[in-house]
């Protein structure tokens, strides 16, 4: 049972925070399949629906492929749809990830980050969502249960205003199963914030004349989603999709601002949050819950006179390259934390994009890639200190080897 404290402060783990956000966000259809460490999300939502606390259709499906297929279909039919998964489940959704995004269906999905098999590991790293980075979903990475709750609520609005599906990620176990204090907004406040889903309207003159018709499955105005699209149009559709993703930056920012007005939490600056970087020589740049520890180490090293800082990236897709170029150019060295391996690649996915963004800058920092924490391996304080020391003594770029593994036995 959930314990409610002082009306709004609740003791929730990250998964429960997702479930609460979904419960309050006027969601019509939830279609999900349980997988560790996402299971609690599905269990709680299932209980809410069963108890009549949430007026939604809960579809029990036989696989994640079906889970996202059903959520996608529901979204095309005009519903506000939600699903959640982890690791292998996300991998099984692969085909429908692209289909959902390419038909501009605003599904929201919580992904509880977990390592991919084989061998089987249920603990946290970012291999699952990093692998899905090119699928056309917006990706927002959360640091704690409070942010998970906030991001999930905002995700519905972002998805519906941008017409891109949104993945809200949370670190498996570290966030998903850790009980934290979460300020839960009153139901009606969240309900008013997300409102009722508005269906965009488009014109298809050759089928429906000059009248604007809803972009949805509607027997009154039939349209075809996902028709055969060959060399004469497929390329145009993909460019359009990519260009549209660039247009999502101001919308993501606006939704955060609006949410800040009702909750007091707007996570500014929205795309990446710097910590003690004003006069920093070196920074660690990373995602999610690890950055809480990095900030503690920053405080510690600052007390010892070291000019170090931290930057936590929140939005990985769309990738805020311009902001990164502007913010990171001033440092001597940047250590990028990648909780994921891109096999055979020149560094992890976060590193390669960060370094690529900086290439156009006249003053480029030295950039190191630190691959850490695979399969839930801890990144303890002393290793973070070691990273900072390495960055402070770094002399030239490129340094060899490009990839540095942190906390692994040789």
């Amino acid at each position: 049972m959930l314990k409610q404290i002082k009306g709004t402060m609740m003791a929730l783990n990250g998964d429960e925070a997702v479930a609460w956000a979904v419960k309050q966000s006027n969601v019509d259809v939830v279609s999900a399949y349980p997988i560790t460490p996402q299971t609690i999300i599905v269990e709680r939502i299932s209980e809410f629906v069963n108890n009549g606390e949430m007026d939604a259709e809960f579809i029990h499906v036989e696989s994640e492929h079906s889970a996202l297929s059903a959520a996608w279909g529901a979204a095309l039919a005009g519903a506000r749809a939600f699903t959640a998964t982890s690791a292998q489940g996300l991998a099984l959704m692969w085909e429908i990830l692209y289909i959902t995004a390419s038909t501009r269906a605003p599904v929201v999905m919580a992904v509880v980050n977990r390592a991919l098999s084989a061998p089987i590991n249920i603990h946290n790293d970012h291999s699952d969502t990093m692998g899905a980075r090119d699928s056309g979903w917006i990706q927002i990475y959360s640091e704690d249960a409070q942010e998970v709750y906030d991001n999930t609520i905002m995700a519905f609005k972002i998805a519906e205003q941008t017409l891109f599906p949104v993945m809200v990620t949370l670190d498996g176990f570290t966030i998903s199963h850790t009980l934290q204090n979460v300020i839960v907004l009153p139901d009606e406040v969240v309900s008013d914030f997300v409102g009722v889903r508005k269906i965009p309207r488009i014109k298809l003159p050759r089928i429906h004349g000059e009248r604007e018709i809803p972009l949805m499955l509607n027997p009154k105005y039939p349209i075809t989603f996902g028709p055969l699209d060959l060399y004469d149009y497929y390329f145009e559709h993909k460019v359009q999709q990519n260009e549209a993703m660039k247009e999502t930056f101001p919308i993501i920012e606006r939704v955060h601002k609006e949410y800040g007005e009702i909750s007091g939490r707007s996570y500014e600056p929205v795309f990446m949050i710097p910590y003690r970087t004003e006069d920093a020589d070196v920074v660690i740049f990373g995602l999610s819950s690890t950055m809480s520890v990095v900030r503690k180490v920053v405080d510690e090293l600052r007390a010892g006179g070291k000019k170090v800082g931290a930057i936590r990236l929140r939005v990985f897709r769309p990738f805020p390259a311009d902001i990164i170029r502007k913010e990171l150019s001033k440092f001597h060295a940047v250590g990028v934390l990648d909780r994921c391996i891109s096999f055979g690649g020149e560094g992890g996915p976060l590193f390669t994009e960060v370094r690529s963004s900086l290439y156009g800058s006249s003053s480029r920092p030295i950039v190191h890639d630190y691959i850490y924490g695979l399969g839930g391996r801890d990144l303890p304080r002393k290793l973070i200190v070691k990273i900072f020391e390495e960055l402070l003594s770094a002399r030239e770029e490129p340094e060899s080897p490009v990839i540095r593994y942190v906390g692994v036995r040789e």
Partner: protein
Amino acid sequence: MSSSLVGWKDLPIGGVAFISTKEYPTGEWAVFQPKIDESKCIKCGLCWMYCPDSVYRWDGESVPVPDLDHCKGCGICEVECPTKAIQMVRV
């Protein structure tokens, strides 16, 4: 690429089809298509029901009429027809 084709800025979003199915015949690549012997047809409507492409037009009383512009020639109607009134013939 021909200039008569629409550019990405003018296409409807989501890759939805912007011309009607009436405008793009999808039956062009059929090798066999149905030919109906009206004298054998008992107007049961099974062809209309089974056709995976909804090719048959049927008013519920007369002999169903296949829209050959969209028939891909799968032959299901021929198999299902209880009186063998449908025969697949090479196009």
